[in-house]
């Protein structure tokens, strides 16, 4: 029954019977902590989602989740986790328009390459590729490359392809333009038909199998393929710099978030300081009536932590809700083609990084608990006679 009194006192601090000044102070703190937590959650959600979005673009359009570097015709084991296998040829090429030229990465792919998932990552111009009726080989350029070359659909471009010290020139027609939404990828990737690469380079073409694998099974599938004696690399090995940058950015942002959470946790102790300062007389009176420091500290600790946990809950929910509605805002920004945002991926699926959010919130709760406990040391220093002196 002893627990009834602390809850009675906590109820008075937080409840409708508390003074309007205390209510205002608590509401202000709830608002402040919620806004900070919402910003932290939103920022982490944004960074992680964008990183995953970029990684996904690279995996789907650049190299696949896994690459099996074996000769065409090598059987790839059928595993439930592998949902797409494509034989791909790739080389580097100079591409010439009548006025400009660029060095690009050329991928030769089968018609089935652009499956539903890959198409989901791209925006095509609304033109049927086969409707051009040209006998020239067709290439698929990004809008970014087309812009630099000053060409459009139906225009001709020349390719000077390089593979294993062999140069192959080829005149092509721009069949269509795509936009993956990520400039870094679009700036150097073009597609052509696999048969063209095969015809031009024969066995000298750099071919490999691109595998799309369920996200949570990449390592396991890789091990199993390597167990079969196949030479396998993953997308992050093929794009080491990009993968490292993405991971470093994520870790750095998480680190910054944790530091902000620590500062926020420290700030929360200010709330307990303010509450104690406001209630000095009441605390002295409770102590005079026989309440020990432990009881008083327990009441104020619980009060502040309830406010903190409630604020964290509100802030987290707000941050996630804001993040989940990010799509429409990003689509709006992407459609505006704002130059400052051109290096960012603005079209990605929002994912909730539960572990990262849990880490940030855990640090926040831990730091605030410790700092509140630290600030509550002053309860012992409140002289009992202050209750009488204030009158």
């Amino acid at each position, binding site marked *: *029954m*002893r627990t*009834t*009194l602390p809850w*009675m006192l906590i109820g*008075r601090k937080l409840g409708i*019977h*508390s*003074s309007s000044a205390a209510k205002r102070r608590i509401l202000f703190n709830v608002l402040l902590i919620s806004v900070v937590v919402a910003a932290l959650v939103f920022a982490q959600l944004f960074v992680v989602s964008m990183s995953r979005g970029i990684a996904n673009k690279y995996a789907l359009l650049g190299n696949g989740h896994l690459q099996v570097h074996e000769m065409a015709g090598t059987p790839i084991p059928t595993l439930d986790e592998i949902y797409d296998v494509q034989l791909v040829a790739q080389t580097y090429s100079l591409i010439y328009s009548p006025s400009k030229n660029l060095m690009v990465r050329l991928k030769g792919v089968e018609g089935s390459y652009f499956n539903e998932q890959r198409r989901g990552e791209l925006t095509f111009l609304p033109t049927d590729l086969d409707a051009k009726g040209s006998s020239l080989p067709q290439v698929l350029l990004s809008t970014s490359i087309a812009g630099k070359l000053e060409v459009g659909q139906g225009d001709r471009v020349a390719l000077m392809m390089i593979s294993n010290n062999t140069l192959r020139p080829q005149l092509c027609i721009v069949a269509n333009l795509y936009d993956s939404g990520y400039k870094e990828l679009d700036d150097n990737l073009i597609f052509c038909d696999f048969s063209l690469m095969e015809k031009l380079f024969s066995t000298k073409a750099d071919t490999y199998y691109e595998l799309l694998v369920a996200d949570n099974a990449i390592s396991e599938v890789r091990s199993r393929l390597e167990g079969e004696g196949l030479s396998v690399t993953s997308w992050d090995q093929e794009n080491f710099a990009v993968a490292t940058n993405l991971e470093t950015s994520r870790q750095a942002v998480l680190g910054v978030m944790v530091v902000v959470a620590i500062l926020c946790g420290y700030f929360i102790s200010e709330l307990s300081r303010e509450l104690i300062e406001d209630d000095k007389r*009441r605390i002295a*009176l*409770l*102590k*005079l*009536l*026989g*309440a*020990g*420091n*432990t*009881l008083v500290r327990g009441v104020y600790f619980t009060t502040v932590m309830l406010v903190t946990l409630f604020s964290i809950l509100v802030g987290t929910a707000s941050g996630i809700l804001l993040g989940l509605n990010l799509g429409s805002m990003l689509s709006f920004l992407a459609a505006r083609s704002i130059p400052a945002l051109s290096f960012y991926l603005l079209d990605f699926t929002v994912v909730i990084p539960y572990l990262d959010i849990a880490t940030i919130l855990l640090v926040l709760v831990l730091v605030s608990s410790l700092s509140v406990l630290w600030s509550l040391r002053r309860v*012992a220093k409140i002289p*009992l*006679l202050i*209750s*009488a002196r204030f*009158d």
Partner: protein
Amino acid sequence: MTKSNELLLLKAVSKSFPATARGGEPIEILDAIDLALSPATSMAITGKSGSGKSTLLQISAGLLSCETGEVLFDGKRLDTLDDGRLSRIRSTCMGFIFQSSLLLDDFTALENVTVPAMIKGLGEREARSKALALLESVGLGDRLGHKSDQLSGGERQRVAIARALVNEPLVLFADEPTGSLDERNAAIIEDMLFALVAEKQVALMLITHNMPFASRCDQVYRLHNRKLEVIR
């Protein structure tokens, strides 16, 4: 209880305060005071304003430390006890009434009296029932749900008396309990205080400069020039 059967014993207690908050030559308030209060007896300390009466009460109740001397409560030296044990003694053995009622503002009269009983460890129901009985005995049965600012000065002081007695203390420390009341209310509180103290067999240490009030106690002292003089 000590062998001498004293509930409260002060031995050669001296106290001084710095002249200013920053220090300076100390001002001596009490000089080698000896005092003994037996259970269920009453004692009044009188004296001029600023003579150190309240300081003596605060030292006796362990609210203030003395520089030299000893304060023994029920045979225990108060200055050697930790916060937990001191709190326990305050909760179970001591009751306080000050010139101002010092009620918890946002609590009702009933809750104000219930809180100390709950601090002592009583369940809410039991605490409320004891508080209710005491508030009825001080004539506030119809003011249970009123908060501090809805009560008159006399009523607030009656709540303070009920609060001080709810845990059935061994001693009641009363520092000018009628000091802020008009004559009529002061008389009511005086009668009520002595009736309850007698009924509940509580020792009383009363600080007052009102001689008629003080003379109702078993022992009367006057604090003068830092020393206690026996009046009766």
